[in-house]
């Protein structure tokens, strides 16, 4: 016989899984520190790649100015400037990435708690049903 309460619970768990699946897998796969450090590393690499792209574009644009400079100091000085901007930008970008990942993991772990609680409730339902069935069998024995 169909157990309506159990079906409702299973449906709600399935909907929750569908809606929050990616977030749940995040908590399942990583510890908080691993998740954040992994994303920080990705952000560092991505930012550095973009900065290099920008630098190449800037060098191509100013190639004639660079080639017309005679002294080494005049060549190096603008790059020191670019380096300072790189560091400032990197710090800001990593801070944003950290904040985003921290919040995302916290949200996901809350979702995981809800999901686990629902699963436990479902498990209790099953145990209760099993016990009731065993009692029923026991009662039938002479």
């Amino acid at each position, binding site marked *: 016989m169909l157990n309506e309460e159990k079906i409702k619970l299973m449906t709600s768990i399935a909907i929750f899984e569908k809606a929050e699946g990616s977030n749940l897998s995040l908590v399942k796969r990583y510890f908080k520190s691993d998740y954040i450090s992994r994303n920080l590393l990705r952000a560092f690499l991505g930012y550095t790649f973009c900065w290099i792209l920008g630098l190449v574009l800037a060098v*191509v644009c100013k190639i004639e100015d660079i080639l017309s400079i005679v002294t080494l100091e005049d060549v190096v000085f603008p790059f020191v400037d670019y380096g300072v901007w790189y560091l400032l930008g990197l710090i800001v970008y990593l801070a944003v990435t950290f904040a*985003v990942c921290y919040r995302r993991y916290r949200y996901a772990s809350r979702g995981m708690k809800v999901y686990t609680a629902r699963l436990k409730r479902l498990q209790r339902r099953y145990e209760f049903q099993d016990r009731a069935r065993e009692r029923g069998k026991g009662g039938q024995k002479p």
Partner: protein
Amino acid sequence: MIGLWVFREKLKGFYARFDVFINPLIRFVFGLVVFHMLNGNLGAMARLNNGLVEVMMALVCSVLPYGVMVFLAGILLLAHVSSISLEMAIILLVLLLFILILYFGLQPRDSYLLLLTPIFFHLKIPYAIPILVGLSCGLSSAVTVCCGVMLFYVMQYIKQNMGTLSGDSTLGIAEQLMQIIRTLLSNRLMVVMMATCAVGILVVYLIRRLPVNFSWAIAIVAGALTQIGAIFIGDFLFDVSVPMPQLLAGLILSMALAAVYHFFVFAVDYTRTEYVQFEDDDYYYYVKAVPKIAVSLPDIKVQRFNDRRRGDDFDE
């Protein structure tokens, strides 16, 4: 009004029944519009400027996430632009890589806004985007919308200067690159529109989350007024001219669109608001419960009677 509520319920029922087909269909139509607009505005590469290519790409996008659509649209855009000007294509590639790596690395869910924003700008209803995004998304979506605005003005620049960009220039690559970058960065209208969108999203988002009655309606009006204010400030500070009839028509249309969205997504009855207070061991709760408007569909029963001409068996 009741007819509209019934229509809304029917539409909801229809979507719930056929969502498996409706979602890919929406993606297909969206993709088709995006690729058609790209081909229509910048269709410089004859091989890709083809209806069949548009349909094929839209078909691929209909079964895949929006990120793939952004990727394909980027490739199509780069292909067209590279046949106009290699220098422009390089700048566009760098810009797209910046957006994809720096922003979508963090927030990949908003990718469709990058395509939707230029479409709304193209349809002359740019003010709808901040209101709709403020009502439906988070604050971080403002970044995607701003990127979309930037892309629109870059595409507009390419369209308007197609002859100059593709013509034989006496300038070298470096000088051409510098010239393009300078022209793009000096586009004040682009900066003003980016600021307008960002401020509009911020205002709409903050107001619609307030626990006051009619917060969504207030947010829509406030968003529209904020955008007018931002445009006027831009006009005053940067000497950016936006034609007044176009501005007003766009704003009215945008508000109408937002009202339709409001009707379908957030329909509540404030007259039946309940205020509840209770406490547990740790907290006092002051709860305001606003009921959703729900209309039961009319249950029409059609009773058929066999008439004499058709119902021969009945007589027998």
